[in-house]
């Protein structure tokens, strides 16, 4: 089957997102990766992930056609996807392994280091099934984080080589792994391996996978946006301001939204849109990491936590500790100080989340307040504690508001971009559209 699609890419400072829309503007696939040193690779990986996700959508459709019930469908696909991810992980791990040894050779490390690396990677490999087992909680979706945290834990435990050396090797190698598109492998490769690994007999799944393979995916138009948009390998007219994309994306998800707050890795945006999704005013803050997602990321690192764990942990707070430092780095130091003075992690974290949200509140105020309905997007919207704090402060200061949050909200900008792509495609006869 021939499927035409448009794709929007949001090259964020932290993560790069891609959304694929079919001709009916329905979402076919989403992809995300962390932004890396090479923007071209980052957007390729994100687009690749979105295409993979599109195939998954197709498989689900095929299963539906084949009369497989939804519950069974979820179960089949769920385990298939976990196996698929595991394959991907193993593939990247293999690249990591050879890169690690390569650097160890180049820096003339002694054999003990190689032995240590072998031991660590072997251990990680053996754990992969568990990592992707049903119901397993993962720290992150990204290889860097998944592999990184485990690698560091294992390096600390092991006796043969110094932690510093191993950590240094990892930091070098992970860059290479991230920056290679090959390291992730291909859909077909992993899909086959995943099918095999799944073991159980599911002929309907195998058939659906085969059918999905047969689809011909045709890209009609692409639009890029985001922090790094100027660096995207796209023609200038295919680039849109991230503010507009966020506005349009939020409008597409929630047609009644009037105020949008986006907290990303490096910047926070407060946007007001009208009933057509057109931005009427906006405010953004940048240049300083305080108050953005990166702040949380930094704190998570300081506490040796994964991003996913921050919110839930803060949720267990019994009170909020006020962290006075505005600077992210100083906040990190203050946090250690507080910890050593016996404050609870949960309480400190709750205070930090509130601090971020407070900053966003002032930006919202600047952009014109919080109107019904209110949509929260960006990576930080995935953080339950940030959401809780925001809900409370909005309620206190602006009264009751419907708060829209979607699990897909991190894709808002990319969705807007994809919609712009369709607009451009549909209006292809109108030349010299909005200049970016």
């Amino acid at each position: 089957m021939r499927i035409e699609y448009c794709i929007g890419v949001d090259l964020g400072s932290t993560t790069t997102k891609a959304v694929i829309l079919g001709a009916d503007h329905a979402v076919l696939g989403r992809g995300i990766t962390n932004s890396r040193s090479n923007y071209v690779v980052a957007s390729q990986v994100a687009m690749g992930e979105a295409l993979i996700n599109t195939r998954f959508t197709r498989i689900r459709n095929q299963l539906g056609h084949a009369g497989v019930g939804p519950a069974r469908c979820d179960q089949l696909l769920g385990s298939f996807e976990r196996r698929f991810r595991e394959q991907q992980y193993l593939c990247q791990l293999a690249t990591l392994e050879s890169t690690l040894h390569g650097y160890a050779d180049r820096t003339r490390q002694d054999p003990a280091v190689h032995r240590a690396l072998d031991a660590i990677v072997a251990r990680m490999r053996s754990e992969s099934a568990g990592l992707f087992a049903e119901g397993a909680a993962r720290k992150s979706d990204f290889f860097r984080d998944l592999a990184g945290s485990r690698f560091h834990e294992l390096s600390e435990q092991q006796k043969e080589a110094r932690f510093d050396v191993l950590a240094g090797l990892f930091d070098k190698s992970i860059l290479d792994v991230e920056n290679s598109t090959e390291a992730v492998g291909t859909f077909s490769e992993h899909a086959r391996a995943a099918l095999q690994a799944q073991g159980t007999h599911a002929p309907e799944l195998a058939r659906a996978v085969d059918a999905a393979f047969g689809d011909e995916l045709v890209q009609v138009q692409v639009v890029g946006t985001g922090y790094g948009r100027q660096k995207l390998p796209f023609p200038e007219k295919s680039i849109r301001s991230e503010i507009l994309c966020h506005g349009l994306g939020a409008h597409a998800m929630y047609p009644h939204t009037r105020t949008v707050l986006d907290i990303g890795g490096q910047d926070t945006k407060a946007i007001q849109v009208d009933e057509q999704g057109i931005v009427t005013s906006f405010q953004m803050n940048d240049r300083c990491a305080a108050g953005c997602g990166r702040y949380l990321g930094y704190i998570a690192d300081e506490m040796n936590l994964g991003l996913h764990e921050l919110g839930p942990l803060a949720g267990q707070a019994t009170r909020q500790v006020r962290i006075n430092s505005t600077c992210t780095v100083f906040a990190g130091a203050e946090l250690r100080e507080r910890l050593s003075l016996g404050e609870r992690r949960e309480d400190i974290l709750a205070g930090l989340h509130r601090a971020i949200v407070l900053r966003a509140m002032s930006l919202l105020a600047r952009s014109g307040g919080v109107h019904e309905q209110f949509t929260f997007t960006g990576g930080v919207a995935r953080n339950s504690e940030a959401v809780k704090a925001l809900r409370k402060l909005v309620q206190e200061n602006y009264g009751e508001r419907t708060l829209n949050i979607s699990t897909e909200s991190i894709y808002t900008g990319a969705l807007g971009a994809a919609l712009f792509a369709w607009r451009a495609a549909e209006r292809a006869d109108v030349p010299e559209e909005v200049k970016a």
Partner: protein
Amino acid sequence: MSNPATAQIHKDASQERQKRMIAEHFHRLAQAPDTGHKCAYTFVPGNLTELLRTFDVLPVLPEINALQSGMRGRSRDYIALAEKLGHSEDVCTYVKCDVGMLHSGNVGPTGERLPRPDLLLLSYTGCFTFMKWFEILAQEYECPVVMLHVPYQGDGRITDAMRRYVVDQLRRKVIPMLEKVSGKAYDEDLLRQHLARSAQAETDLVAVLEAAKHRPSPIDAYFGGVYYIGPIFTAFRGTQDAIEYYRELRAEVEERMRAGKGPVTPEGELEHEKYRVVVEGPPNWTSFRQFWQMFVDEGAVVVASTYTKVGGVYDNGFRHDPARPLETLAEYCMGCYTNLDLPTRVAMLSRYVQEYSADGFLINSVKSCNSFSAGQLMILREVEKRTGRPGGFIESDLVDPRYFSASNIKNRLESYFQMIEQKRSSGAGT
């Protein structure tokens, strides 16, 4: 860009004239120690140029020197020097730029040395920093200082008591001091003649600025505007030169208007006027051209600005009035833009947006200047509310290049113009 008058590739006669006027003025200043000309340092907002001329005293305007230093790429070093001398990072960079220049030989914008002041005439309007600035200069120079305190229009109007206060100071403090410094007696008739010439030039200036109501606008009333206000805001108000400059300029602008031409930009003429905007706040001088180019790239023309009113608001009908020489000077001082209260500023901007058929308005908020900046965010919302047109907000600084982030400003401007565009296309299309 070495001199404002050379900024534009295509040079009109008026530009040549302005260039010559400025060069002559600075030359006269450089010669002052030899010719015995007396010089007074004073400020642009609320300047008493006609009065100074009455005593044949030449004005030196530290703000202009500072902005010129910014344009010539010298301000970074000057500011660094001032900070090294203990001036705070947080305060107005004009002051620091001036202090730095002073400690680096006091060479003016044309490369000639500026004379030491014979008088510091602290006639200041609309900003407390001016007062400090001259306190600082008073430490550097052993010369008399005379202060003219101009009360603020806190209620949006000039009361009799305010006018009397300023006139009293002129009569009892400023004039006697000028007599002493210059050795000349006060000649009110001479002052009246200067004032009459001022009024004439002012009328032509207003015609030039209001030409922007035309579509397409023949001028850029911000980036181009700062060149147009040059003579009348500085040393030339009340001179024959100024009269001729403005007459010539007006004729040129009216000709462009008749021909349906757009403004002249550093890249040549702007052919397609895509957006019309009103701008509030001073420009950035260190990247003036780059800043302008960002507007040009978008096809944006500034049709009205408040910055071109800092040295006097004339488009509300005010003219220097030879019949009431001291009162008119008092009213002039009190009427400069930054001496207006915020409700008046909001009303003025809203009026501009409407009268100049602007698509929106932009605020360039400069870190240096509390007088302008404190309250701009509220102005933004109020004007949006009153006009229904979108406002944009960018931040930079006057002469501190550290606070001009090109990528940041470009990002905001782009988003802003795309927003206007999107609004427009959906309004027309769907």
